[in-house]
């Protein structure tokens, strides 16, 4: 990483387990601020587990364990003094399958993070809803039916609603776990456009099994294989002149 880029998240010697199974080994990586970083790799390579370590979601799974250090703005997130609940308000997450809350309207879904955290910002609810939906490029499609149920939207709209919901809490980092894998190509293109705009304000880490997507949206790409970080470079260079033979084999489609 060049010296003018500040690392938002820096990871040292990260290991993570499910029960006895080691799924991530000795990961060292620095994720730059206000850029999009893609994590690619075949299924089961630990890429989802890696980002779930970054917002301390991994430990919610019974038997799951983490070792090593992750720093957010030079503050260790696994320190005893850090409350994971508060940490997750700074690091938003978008999941593989759109998961809007079925009991809530579109509006309440956007506000759900603020309501769940009893935020004082609820006083400006209307402008927060509009802002978040604008940022998620969903406002024009839903502004006349904000009180309709969120699950009535199409899959792509639901996913953008989930992005709006994550943005409404004003996180610093947005983790995206294969956010387009359940969407059609048109909806995927909209989300990708969105990511381009969002990285002006947020640090984005996107897990994807789609290499074209990584090439299209990210500034840097990390290639994970069997729980290890094989290669991590600027996206363009990674896809044109990979250093590691395994990376080359993967991006040219020899396996995975």
């Amino acid at each position: 990483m060049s010296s003018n880029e500040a690392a938002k998240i820096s990871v040292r010697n990260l290991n993570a387990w499910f029960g006895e199974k080691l799924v991530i080994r000795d990961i060292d990586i620095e994720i730059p601020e206000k850029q999009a970083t893609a994590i690619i790799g075949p299924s089961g390579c630990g890429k989802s587990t890696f980002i779930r370590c970054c917002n301390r979601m991994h430990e919610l799974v019974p038997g799951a364990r983490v070792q090593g250090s992750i720093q957010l703005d030079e503050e260790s997130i696994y320190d005893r003094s850090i409350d994971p609940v508060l940490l997750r308000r700074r690091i938003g997450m978008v999941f593989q399958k759109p998961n809007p809350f079925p009991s809530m309207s579109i509006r309440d879904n956007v506000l759900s993070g603020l309501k769940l955290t009893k935020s004082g910002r609820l006083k400006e609810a209307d402008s927060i809803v509009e802002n978040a939906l604008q940022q998620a490029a969903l406002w024009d499609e839903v502004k006349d039916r904000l009180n309709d149920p969120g699950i009535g939207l199409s899959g792509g709209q639901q996913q953008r609603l989930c992005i709006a919901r994550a943005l409404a809490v004003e996180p610093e980092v947005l983790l995206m776990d294969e956010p387009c894998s359940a969407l059609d190509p048109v909806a995927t293109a909209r989300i990708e456009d969105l990511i381009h705009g969002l990285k002006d304000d947020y640090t984005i880490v996107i897990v994807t099994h789609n290499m074209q997507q990584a090439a299209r949206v990210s500034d840097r790409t990390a290639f994970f294989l069997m729980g290890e970080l094989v290669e991590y470079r600027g996206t363009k260079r990674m896809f044109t002149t990979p250093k590691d033979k395994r990376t080359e084999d993967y991006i040219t489609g020899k396996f995975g």
Partner: protein
Amino acid sequence: MEKAKTPLRERIIEGGLLCCGAVSVITTAAILVILLIETAGFFKEVSLMDFFADTQWTPLFSEKHFGIWPLLSGTLLTSAIAIAVALPMGLLAAIYLSEFAAEGVRKTLKPILEVLAGVPTIVYGYFALVYVTPILQKIIPNLSGFNALSPGLIMGIMIIPMVSSLSEDALHAIPATLKEGAFALGADKLGTLFRVTIPSALSGIMASAILAASRAIGETMIVAIAAGQQPRFTFDPRVPIETMTAYIVQISLGDTPTGSIAYKTIFVVGASLFIMTFSMNILSRKLVRRYRRGGS
């Protein structure tokens, strides 16, 4: 293409199975028809006005009154007490089992709780009369030996497993991804539970409450034994009352001649009960269907 002929053997088996299924449908239909005929006969002799507007129920006295309110109030009172016990306790048990208990604890406790539903109601009835009422009398001095409170409480305990088991199913059916969504937004465990998990499971929880209420309304033995047999239009839980079901027991066991007006009252009360529980079951089925759709 010609459709393949079903072999005779299979058609016989199919017919036999159909007959087995039909038995229960035909029985239900027959019960409905008889209820309807006898109820119609009752209303030839007693006006709807007397049935709905009178507040006394004395079909066995020389001065007869046929107001349904005393029996209805008795049923509603005991059922309301039962729900007041079963809903909070059942729901808390369901929340504990689904959200807090370790998998092993859940697997052990749930069947044990469900055993409560298997205790014969006659046992509950005597338990209410012989144990619970005397204890309650020490706390509430002017409580009668027969009252609505004690059988209501016991009925509530009886239907706890119904509420907890069905609510637990509803809570457990909420996908983990929804809870993760809430956690990722910075919610704590209780916030997630009350703002996401329970609201998402609400139709299932409501369905369990309605089914439990319908079970309480239809419950017979406990109230027949411990609530007394005095039709009385009151919502005072301390005095003897009579529920609709207990009245039917009382008349059925007596020497009421077939065809008499007292005989017909059984059917009209039965029909009223049927309408109440039937509509509640329909409502709960609708709610369950909604939560199945929403939860998938």
